[in-house]
């Protein structure tokens, strides 16, 4: 059997399939709470990789329909921006 503790679901924050499935087994099936506990979807990629995978795992394990799983908010900036870039003109060296 596949070792789920070696399957990375969230590359930004190194969250494994096992960590997510363990939470679901404990009754934590709300993707919003799984997000806060494991930090899936909160890294630099804003969940582009992990959120669909996590939604799939929840659907498979709980029997929920994947279209009924409300995807958590994507926060701005959608891509990481250096503070020096945001400061702009008044910080020239």
């Amino acid at each position, binding site marked *: 059997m596949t070792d789920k503790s070696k399957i990375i679901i969230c590359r930004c*924050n190194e969250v494994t399939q096992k960590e997510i499935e363990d939470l679901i087994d*404990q009754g*934590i099936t*709300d993707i*919003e*709470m799984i997000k*806060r*506990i494991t*930090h899936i979807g*909160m*890294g*630099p990629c*804003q969940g582009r990789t992990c959120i669909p995978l996590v939604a799939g795992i929840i659907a498979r394990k709980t029997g929920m329909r994947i279209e009924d799983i409300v995807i958590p*908010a994507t*926060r*701005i*900036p959608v891509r*990481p*921006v*250096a*503070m*020096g870039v*945001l*400061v*702009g003109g*008044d*910080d020239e060296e």
Partner: protein
Amino acid sequence: MMKNKVDVAIIGGGIIGLYTAYELHKRGVDNIAIYEKNYLGSGSTFRCGTGIRQQFGDEANIRMMKRAVEKWTGLGEEINFPKFKMAQTGYLFLLYDEDEMSRFKKNVELQNSLGVPSRIISPEEAQEIVPTLDTSEVIGASWNPTDGKANPFLAVHGLARYLRENGVEINEYTEVRDVIVKGGAVDGIKTSRGEVKAEIVLNAANAWAKIINEKLGVNFPIEPYKHQGIVSEPFKKGEIKPMVISFRHGGAYLTQKANGGIIGGIALKYGPTWDLTPTYDFLREVAKNFTRIIPALKYITIIRQWAGYYAETPDHNAVIGKVKEIDGYYISAGFSGHGFMLAPAAAEGMADLITKGSTSLPLDFYDPYRFERGELREQAVQMG
């Protein structure tokens, strides 16, 4: 099936509602239910800046926060959830002029007299604590090593897990629409999933508290203001251990989280408003002010920005107490940005009040009726 009769119904599944349920359960109240219209923590708790400080300027807040820190540091073990730990990494207020210095010296004296080990330190000592600081204009700092921060996600998750295991009913996605009053006393609540009989109702809905109050003809001045926060990509851990504060820089607060990313914000606020759209002005002002405090941050990227409410009162202190007009109705809301840090002490005081009618904690300071009597407190400084 949701219970149709409880002893205590708590409106709001944030840190205040959960922690108060926990304190009530400790006191032997066993039929408690929490009603949260969204998911736990979704209102203000999960949007907060994570800071926990005792460096306040008045006796009541200092005493409450000293008690809160005692409780925060023991919570993980108490609820068998050692993953939750308060990190006592300190709060460092950077001071830039004599006015700030004299105000903070006075505060430190008061804090020391109440057993909080804060002290005024030199710019060099501040730089030892955070080596990357630009201290060229800093004349000193107010430092308390027993302040710190904690992870609100884990606090909520740990408390909710413990409460569920101990028979407290937690109802998410269940909106309380009204409180049923009969003969001047609480009789129950109306929720989106039906009616529930209750002897006692606690309004712990923070920014939303006034919506319920207005239906009952009770009015305490609590208004939602939009504040925002950011997190950065992770970098070498331990570079910015304490919460660093600078009033000179837009009321900035920032610290490194456990994963090495920065969490922080500035005092810029909008409102009163229910709008929570993040603003570009905030993002730019954060970058400008943070990079003046710690210049090397210009190389660090911001990865997320979000908004949340400060449920503000006119004196920036919470509304905690018994509602006189309706027997059995209590309120613990309007925390003005300090709900997370104050939660353990506010919960202890409220649980005492509900079960014994009084508490040794200075809850009078947060008396809901001070506004109508015109007895506003000195404004508490709203900061992380």
